[in-house]
């Protein structure tokens, strides 16, 4: 074998190792199906019509044993409502239309979640399907994630939450004192093929849940056909909770 032949062979073999993974677009190269990318669309006009409605909040907090703290400073919330100007301070266009109205908010399950890299124990992590999850076993209660989250989606258990849970749902654990908690896009329900509890509970069809990687999913169709905004997009966190306008 001449030197030239050897080099040619080397280059070819190198190419054959690299090529398949690079040429396959839309796959991770392992032959597995592309992972899901869960997202939620909130129809704020439909939601605002049902003023005072708390169906989604009640359903979520009931199935996840979220305590009802009497002290507002110690409040625990997975899904809640806030005024438009508080959720979208830099997007004043609809400020007038939603004056005095409260809009649903929850964890945005950011594509680039600021809460994940700050966690010293990796209790907060991002799953392949985009869900920003918490491993409550690992949480040491340092609250770095709460400082990092620009959406106020996280709550801290300043005391044992159990006495403040109206009826403990035996199908889901509670949390302990000294642990941070938040919405998990109902990972436990998704695993059983169910929709998140809030989406299930909303009778006004204001919440739509689906897979951004699925062209035929309702969330993709809605986002293609109607204008939508995200909370604080300028931070580059790429939230996966979208708010439909019009």
């Amino acid at each position, binding site marked *: 074998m001449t030197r030239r032949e050897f080099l040619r062979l080397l280059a070819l073999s190198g190419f054959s190792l690299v090529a398949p993974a690079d040429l396959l677009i839309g796959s991770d190269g392992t032959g597995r199906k592309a992972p899901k990318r869960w997202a939620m669309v909130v129809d704020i006009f439909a939601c605002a019509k049902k003023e005072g409605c708390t169906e989604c909040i009640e359903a979520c907090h009931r199935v996840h*044993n979220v305590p009802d703290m009497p002290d507002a400073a110690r409040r625990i919330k997975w899904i809640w409502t806030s005024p438009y100007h508080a959720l979208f301070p830099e997007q004043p266009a609809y400020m007038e239309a939603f004056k005095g109205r409260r809009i649903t908010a929850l964890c945005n399950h950011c594509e680039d979640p600021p809460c994940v890299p700050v966690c010293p124990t990796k209790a907060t*992590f991002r*799953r392949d*399907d985009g869900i920003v*999850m918490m*491993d*409550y*076993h690992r949480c040491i209660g340092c609250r770095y994630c709460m400082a990092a989250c620009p959406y106020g989606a996280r709550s801290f258990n300043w005391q044992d939450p159990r006495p403040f849970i109206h009826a*403990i*749902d*035996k199908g*889901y*654990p*509670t*949390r*302990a004192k000294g642990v941070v908690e938040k919405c998990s896009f109902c*990972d436990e329900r998704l*695993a059983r093929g169910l929709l998140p509890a809030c989406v299930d509970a909303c009778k006004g069809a204001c919440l739509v849940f689906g897979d951004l990687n699925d062209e035929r999913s309702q969330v993709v169709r809605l986002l293609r056909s109607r204008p939508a905004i995200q909370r604080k997009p300028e931070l580059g966190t790429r939230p996966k909770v979208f708010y439909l306008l019009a």
Partner: protein
Amino acid sequence: MYSKPLVLIIIMVVLAGLVAPFIYARIGKGASGPPTLAAPPGGEKECVEPTAYMRRHHVDVLMKWRDAVVREGRLTYVASNGRQYVMSLTTTCIGCHSNKADFCDRCHDYVRVQPRCWECHTFPEKGGAAR
């Protein structure tokens, strides 16, 4: 030696005090040896893994299950004998070992460990006293 009887008595008392725990452990209520654990009330004979392995490694199994479910989203455990189980403390483990006080607690009390599972996990309603 001046107060010989007194010194002897004191030596006897000190010796008795030193030996007492060992005698007490042999004959008294605090008899040594691992506690006997209650079998599952449902009469199940087979655990997810062999008894000897579970006795030693049940914590490792639980930790592995926890990481698999919470972090990897996997729910099914394939045991060494090929049988499949749902990785769940409250449904799979407690599903059989519903007698927490006579099973979990008896040994945990004996070895003086205080697992914190039930601070968050809720004990299933039927059978076993939740605490």
